[in-house]
Every structure is written in C-alpha cells, then in structure tokens.
C-alpha cells in the first residue's frame, strides 16, 4: 500500500521539476534602470500622475493617504539604477521606495527624512545612490532602497 503511494509522489515531484526545467530561464544581469533626471509631475483631479518621457502612469492617492495629506501640487519621481522608484513631495516627511511588479508598484521601503516636512525636495541621480536635496534647508540625504545611507 505504501509503496505505490511513494512511487506516485516521486513521479509527481519529478513531473514538477521537469515542468520547471522547461520554463524560461534567461536572466540578464547588471541592468541599469537609472533615470538621469528626476521627473516633476503634477497630479490631475483623480490624483493620477503621468510621466510621458519615462512612460509611467499611476495614482498617488495611496501615498497621500499614507502621508496624511489630501493633495500636493507636484511630486518628484526618480528611478534608481537598481530599478526602484523613489517618490516624495514638498511637505512630505518620507520618501517612498517602490519596486515594480505586474501592473503594480509595491512599497519596498518608507524612509523617514524629517518630522517637519520637506521644504523643496529634489532627487539627483548619483553613481551609487539617489541624492535627496532639500533646497529650502540645504540638507542633503543619500538614499537607496534600503533607507538612508
């Protein structure tokens, strides 16, 4: 009784491995997703932002809710070399780091920068990190998807 069961299970496992081996296996390494300049985007009445140049469109309502504000004039968006999107805006306390998935941006990290809100934030692409500058205060922060460096 036990023998046929073990045989059946072994066959199933073998089939699964076989199926996995037949799927796509090509992986390209060292992709540079870096967006050389940040995008400054104005949300529409539905809180949709659309970056025509880098071809991305999403809704920022969730971010606004998370930040506890009802609206912003514009948001700053930049993509790191690793492919993470960094989002912030004037008045935000945090920088939101998203990774991409199928029709999704998933929050990877929420980096707290200040408790008083950023004055005039601006992202700059740097070789190994994203630089966040608050032009109002002159403070500079070096970020990656893990947080402040």
């Amino acid at each position, binding site marked *: 009784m036990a023998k046929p069961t073990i045989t059946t299970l072994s066959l199933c496992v073998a089939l699964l491995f076989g199926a996995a081996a037949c799927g796509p296996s090509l992986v390209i390494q060292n992709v540079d997703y870096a967006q050389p*300049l940040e995008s400054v985007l104005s949300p529409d009445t539905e809180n949709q932002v659309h970056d025509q140049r880098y071809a991305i469109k999403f809704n920022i309502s969730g971010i606004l809710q998370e930040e506890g504000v009802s609206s912003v004039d514009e948001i700053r968006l930049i993509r790191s070399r690793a492919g993470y999107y960094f989002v912030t805006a004037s008045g935000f306390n945090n920088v939101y780091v998203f990774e991409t998935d199928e029709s999704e941006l998933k929050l990877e990290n929420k980096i707290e920068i200040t408790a008083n809100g950023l004055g005039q934030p601006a992202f700059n692409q740097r070789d190994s990190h994203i630089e966040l*500058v*608050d*032009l109002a205060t002159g403070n*500079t922060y070096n970020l990656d998807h893990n947080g402040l460096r």
Partner: protein
Amino acid sequence: MKKLLRTAFSTMAALLFVASATVVAQQSDFQIQQDFRAQYNEVVNQVDTAVSTDELVEVAAAIDALEAEYSEYSSIINAAIYPDTFSNRISDLRNRYAAGQANVSTIEQLNERIRDLMAEIDEFRDRVTQMDEEIADLKEQIDRSSANERRQAALIRQYRQNIEQRDEFVSNVLEQLMTRYQELDSATQAEIADAVERMSDNPIELLKTMLAEYTNLADQNSGLEAPDFVRMRAQHGYFADIWNRIGERLANTFAPDNPVEARQEVTDMLAAWQASVDNKLWNALTTAFNQNGIELPPFTSASTFNNALNSYVDNAMEVSMESNNEEDYEVFRNFSNYWNTTVKAQWGELLVNGNILSNSQIAAIDVKLTQWGEAAQPTSNLMFILFLISLAVIIGLVVLLVTKKS
C-alpha cells in the same frame, strides 16, 4: 570706447553670474536643466532680435557665459534634451550669431540709407518752409500796403518772383524723387518699407505739405494775374505727371500698410489744388483778353476756353469776309498781335504744360488766324478808278477820231 566698455561689462556680469552659481552647494539637476533651457531660449531671442553691432556684442558674451556656466552639467543637460545635446545647442547659438552678424550688417547699411534719406527730406522741408514763410510775409506786406500803389506793385512783383522760385525748387525736388524712385527695384522698395516705421518724415508727407501750401497760395487773393495762374496750372500739370509716374512706388515704399489710401490722399490733394487754381484762372484769362480789347464768350474750363477762342475767331472772320473794311482789319491785327506776342510767346509752353490748350489746338487757331488775315484785308478802289480813267480816255479818243473824219 563705449563698445569696449559694454563688452567688458557684459563679460564681467557673465563671469559674476557663473561664479555666483557655482558657490551654491546644494543643487537640483532638474533645476539646472530647467535654468539652462530658460537661458538658452533667452539667448536665442536675443540673437534673433539683435539689430545693432552693440547688441551682437552682448549676445556673443551671453553665449560664452552660457557655455561656461553649463558645460560642467553637459551630461545632465544631454539627458534632459535628448536627442539634442548641449554642444549642439551651443553650436546652434553660434550659427545664429553668425547669421545675425550678416543681418545686422544689412540692417546698418539700410539704417544709413534711411538716415541719409531723412536728412535730405528734412533739408527739402526746411527750404520749402522757409520759402512759404517768405511768401506769407510778402502777402501780409501786400495787404498792408494798399495805400501805396507803387510799393504794392513792387511787392507783388517780388511775391510773383518768390512763387516762381518755389516752383523751381519744388520741380527740382520732384525731379530728384523721380530719378530715385522711378527705377526702384522691389527688393530695395521692400527694405525701405520695413524701415519706414523708424522714419519721422518721408517723401509722401513732404509732397502733401507742398500740395497744401500750393492750394493755400492759389486760394489767396494777392494781386496775381492770368500769367501767374497759368503758371500754377503748368506747375500742377508737372506735379501730377511726376505723381502718376512714381506715386505707386512711393506709396508702396513709404506707406506699405495702406498704399491705396495714401495714393488717393495725394490724388485728392492734387484735385483740390487744381480746383483752387481754376477758380481764379478762367476769370483772370477773361480779364486779360478783355483788357486787350478781345471780348471772348464766357468759359469755365480748358475745353470751353478753346471753344471761346475758336468762336471769337470764326465770328470775326465771318464779319471780315462780309465787310472788308479797315475797322475789321484792325480787330484782326489786335487779336493777332495779342495772340502771337503774349498768348503764344509768353504763355504758350505753360498753357500746354497746364493742359489748358494743346499744341494742336494752338495750331488750329493759327490756321484760322491766317485765313482771317486774308479775309480781313481791305479791298483797294485804285484799279476801279484806273479802269474808269482808261474808259474815259478811250471814249475821248474815239470821239476825237470821229470828229476829225467828219
């Protein structure tokens, strides 16, 4: 020196701007490219609108400053303006600058031409104004000196001379305008038209001033006589002829926005001048003929004047053919003398130029005058008397012969 100072100032300002920009430690790459775009557009506008060498010097300094300020950010700018590049933008500015230099050179040549033209027009206007003032002054003196006939006559003589001088001067101006604008090519015409807005005065305005003063002169009652009005008519004919030849070009060149209206305005002023002259001319001619014992039928235009002359000659010739007496012959001699020594000799050219009588109309009167002269010649009785004497002698001889035979 002024140019050097301006260059030095522009360069220093540009360097200061660069220096101040680099002092700022915190920067936004996004803002840098935004600033570059704004400054680039500003320099493009500057170079495209530069109309003088001084402005081009400023543009050259601005291009250098832009390049110096942003060359270290060229990679950021390249990313922002892809597929264009920072170096392409700077090259584009330098190319525009080179094109601007060529344009400015043309503009400055044109400005020079316009300055010369305006100086010339100013000179004409000053001279015309001076002559008008002299004529007005003389007119005032004539009005004041009515008590002294000899003085008034002298002033009228002077007044007449001044008007003739003015006519001569205006004719010279018109001659110069015609020489210059009759053959004006369309490119030059367009160039001058572009610069007209910068001109405070232009030939059309000068012509309008002249016409207004001519009309004013004709309207005044200043002891002028038939020859003066005939001369005015001739001057009008000359003016109208020149305007017909160059009016369209002048209007297209100096009134490019409304050439048709500008032409019509001058044409209307010419018509007003002619009406003012005619208003005096026909009465003055009637008076002149009357004063010489020639009573012409009434006339109020060039054609009716010609009819009046023909009618007078025809009627007089008919009378002469019927009577052949000495009195009629005297009428002929009087008309012939006035016609040949005054009308034809002194006014002939003016009458033709003023479109009062044509050469063929004058010739037609001449032909009639010859016929009239032949018809008016008084017939002699000498032949008849000789015939009677001869007849008497023959009869006498016959009677004598018959008496001797018997």
